[in-house]
């Protein structure tokens, strides 16, 4: 039966070989677990989410301003058309 190593494995990590001692500088140093950025909480779909509703109002604003712009352009063109006809026969 091969020898079994029981205990802590050796490591090259210099910090772990140091004996604990109080810090000598104002800055706190040490190691902390990295935050787990790979995993995110699943956001469940909201069954009460109202369909078509855009709470930001962005879609409505865009459509509204597009409608304003188109209507204004058409109105200007129509006004120009009528004025150009009236100007000639007037």
């Amino acid at each position, binding site marked *: 039966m091969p020898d079994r190593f029981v205990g802590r494995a050796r490591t090259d990590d210099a910090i772990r070989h140091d004996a604990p001692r109080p810090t000598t500088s104002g800055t706190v140093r040490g190691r902390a677990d990295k935050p787990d950025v790979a995993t995110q909480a699943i956001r469940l779909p*909201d*069954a*009460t*989410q*109202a*369909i*078509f*509703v*855009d*709470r930001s*109002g962005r*879609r*409505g604003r865009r*459509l*509204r301003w597009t*409608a*304003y712009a188109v*209507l204004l352009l*058409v*109105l200007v*063109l*129509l006004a*120009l*058309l009528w004025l*150009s*006809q009236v100007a*000639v*026969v*007037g």
Partner: protein
Amino acid sequence: MGTWREGQKIGDTQHIATPEPRKSRFAGRRWIIAGVGTLVLANLLAIGAYANSRFAPDNEGEPGLQDAVPAAVRDGGPVVDTRTGRVASHQVPDRTIVLTFDDGPDPLWTPQVLDVLHKHGVPATFFVLGSQTSRHPEFVDRMVREGHEVGVHTFTHPDLAGMDGWRQRLEISQTRSAIAYAAGVTTPLLRLPYSSGVDSLDNKHWSVVQGAGGQNMVSVFDDTDSRDWARPGVDQIVRSSTPPDGRGAVVLLHDAGGDRSQTVAALDTFIPQMRQRGYRFTTVEGAFGDQAPGLAAGKASRADQIRGGLLVWAVKVADGTNRLLWFLLLLVGALTLIRTLVLFGFALRHARRRRARTWSWGAEVHEPVTVIVPAYNERRTIAAAVRTLATGNHPGIEVLVIDDESDDGTAEEVEALGLPNVRVVRVPGGGKASALNAGIALARHDLLVMVDADTVVTPDAIHKLVQPFADPRVGAVAGNVKVGNRRRLIGLWQHIEYVIGFNLDRRLYDTLRCMPTIPGALGGFRRQAVHEAGGLSRATLAEDTDLTMAIHRAGWRVVYEETAVARTEAPDTLGQLWRQRYRWSYGTMQAMWRHRRAVVEHGASGRFGRRGLPFIALFSVVLPLFAPVLDILAVYGLFFLDRVEALVAWLVVMVIQAVTAILAFRLDREPLRPLWTLPLQQLVYRQMMYLVLVHAAATALTGGLLKWQHLRRSGEVAAEA
């Protein structure tokens, strides 16, 4: 307590869990946009009508009095120049032919005429119509590029003699502008519509010629009239065009206004024949330029071109709008006709099958039923509704009233009835869907019936409603809901609509297995089907439509039982009706969108998605959305087309509606008397329903939040129960 959505409290007690939307700054402007849109459409239709003015081909009428026409003009040549205030008339030199073409350009015949002229290397003068130039500017450009001359033949081909001065000036100036845009030239040549030789010039037309001179225009008449508009045959056209004794002539021909194949063929003969006789071909300017200076075309100014561009594009857009409207009219007409025929066929077959003695759903269903009545502030109607439900003749009816935090004593009203088979449960205000879900959870039986609190039922309604559950494949049943409050006109209109909707549409949907909605007023459900459908969702404002579609997708059959009758209270003002239908339309769109994936799914869901959803979308959304085209073109026809034809077309539509209504009323064994309101319904109610649908579609597009409003109850139906 309150209403929660997306993890946030969005309101306190409400009948339905939708928050009160903020007052939109846009709300008032909607009507301005609608008004401006209507104004633009009216303008386009008017421009289109003007550019499409019908005219008769040239013909010879008897001239009127001629005493004011100078003898020098009547006996002179075909070119009359009054530009300087002095009258000058010019003859065509001998052995000279000026070919002139009126009424073009035409996309079919003008290129053929130009090809023949090009083949023989002959120039000609084209008197074009402004409206036609606007539609086909490329041919006018080609004329000028190939060395031809272009003149004015007015914009819409009216008889200028009968018109005001401003209208005459408009006809000429518009055509000059269109030519300026199309070919970049300006022309001083004019040919009056319906004119021929100078000998037929009468006093009225002479004043037009003088007026044209004031606009720096020279009038061009003809020496020989080919009379090609009458299509007398190629030889006759050639003979009519040929001047006698080697004299010169301005020849009148047409490159538009009908079939011009004879003109094209005659040209091919006429040109070589006249050349053999020693004739030369030239333009008006080529023949008269020496005698009358200033006949040549000039370069159009930038302002003229811009003015012409505006006009040309206005006509093009107006024509496009016109074509689109006519196409939509055909589409709507065809769909309506198909739908009517299909409705008739399927509804009659459905009714015949159901009334057959052999018809049965299976063994009679006697299983106990839980009737769920969601109620929010329904004190005026709840007692009558609950009493008719609880005293129904079906064995084992349990009525479960879910009081959605009412504050008008609804629950107490029910408790005061003291009926042993009625339970009242008070739930936190969460809306109708939540209340129904609570009712489903608390129901003691597996057969469920959902009834609105403003609805009363006949004693056997519940028993008949649950009979289709004898078939284990049936998951939901729609009852036959009628309008109970019919004293006012608005109630009668809705009554007609309900009878048609329930007796024709639902029979059709039942046959095609794509019933879109089990009405909230009276619907039966198998608890398992509701569970498999996921219960009632608050995601849409038409929770009944949403649930029905989900039940279809879960593989259950949804059927119609016309003998289960309920009477409900319909909105009694136009404002209330608008709000109700606005919500229904919006909710139906939401439900269809929510279940859109069914189109690509397999199994029962896919079957509903591919068969039912497109059918519902086509006939419940697309057809009503485009149906206003019927009324728009009816109004357009009254103003711009043959009024009798327009009126007849509109009456035909009304007759179809009337026949449909009569059939529905007969199938439902309803008296026909309310149908006297049908003509008025076509004038007010139908248009209002269009606007509601457009409003709902606009809200869906812009992402607006629709407001739910609790309808005011009159208690009329309850009082009669």
